[in-house]
């Protein structure tokens, strides 16, 4: 099964790097969509089927925290697995994000193998 992925990051180059890492990782994905902030991500979700969201935290307009809150409050999108790809490493903040329903996180810098292992683990049981 190939999953549709949404990459949310305000850095255009980082979105391309994450897409490159997805290609290198061997993770089975179908269509890949991009958004530069949380609001753009919500716009993509309105018009496309998304199975998995990879998001940064620090972004203008609508940051990752706000996006995660919006997703959690929306019955249509609330079950989509969310993985953070971020420089954030504070255990305190990550604990709060996991309580909001974030499935996992990958700290930048990362290897494609890390991305594959995390995503395969989540998509085997995405709603656990």
């Amino acid at each position: 099964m190939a999953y549709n992925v949404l990459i949310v990051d305000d850095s255009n180059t980082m979105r391309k790097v994450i897409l490159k890492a997805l290609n290198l990782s061997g993770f089975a994905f179908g269509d890949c969509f991009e958004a530069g902030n949380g609001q753009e991500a919500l716009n993509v979700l309105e018009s496309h089927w998304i199975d998995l969201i990879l998001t940064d935290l620090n972004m203008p307009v609508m940051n990752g925290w706000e996006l995660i809150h919006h997703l959690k409050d929306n019955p249509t999108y609330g079950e989509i697995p969310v993985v953070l790809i971020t420089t954030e490493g504070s255990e305190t903040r990550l604990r709060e994000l996991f309580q909001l329903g974030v499935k996992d996180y990958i700290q930048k810098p990362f290897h494609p193998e890390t991305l594959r292992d995390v995503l395969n683990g989540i998509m085997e049981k995405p709603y656990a």
Partner: protein
Amino acid sequence: MLESIRKAAVSATLNIFETMYFTFLETMDGNGTLMEAVAEQEKQSDRLPEVQSPWVVKSEIHFIGQYSGLLRLCLPYDLSRTLTLNFMGYEDEVSESQILDMAGEMTNMICGNLFSSLDKTSVYLLSSPVSQKISLPERSKRIDSSEINLGFLTEGQLVTIDIQLNL
């Protein structure tokens, strides 16, 4: 305190360059050596303008937390172009906006990793990085005033990081 930040910054920088940019850095020790290297690079760029671009990509990020201040990264423009190609996996050309974006992302990664490695429980707020192209002499003017100055070499090109702390 300064020494622990310095060590964490060196470790984060080496790791990020290796993991995301496939580039190995050599660490330079001591501010004196660093200033000499900066001066030497300026001289070389005067003598060999066709070999080495006289431009530098500067990227700055503000951080607020247990420690607050500013982290500034400076990369030779030619090296920035190579790093952007490595980062994005491209083989031909990259635009200036992609180079500046890459430098901002690198600065963000260095700052985030530096402070999370110092204390896993601390929470830091990071600003959006701001990147711009500056001249070599402009870089050397800015280095003196910072509490922590770091220098790295790769293939004869000098990478500098300076950290200003609000003490």
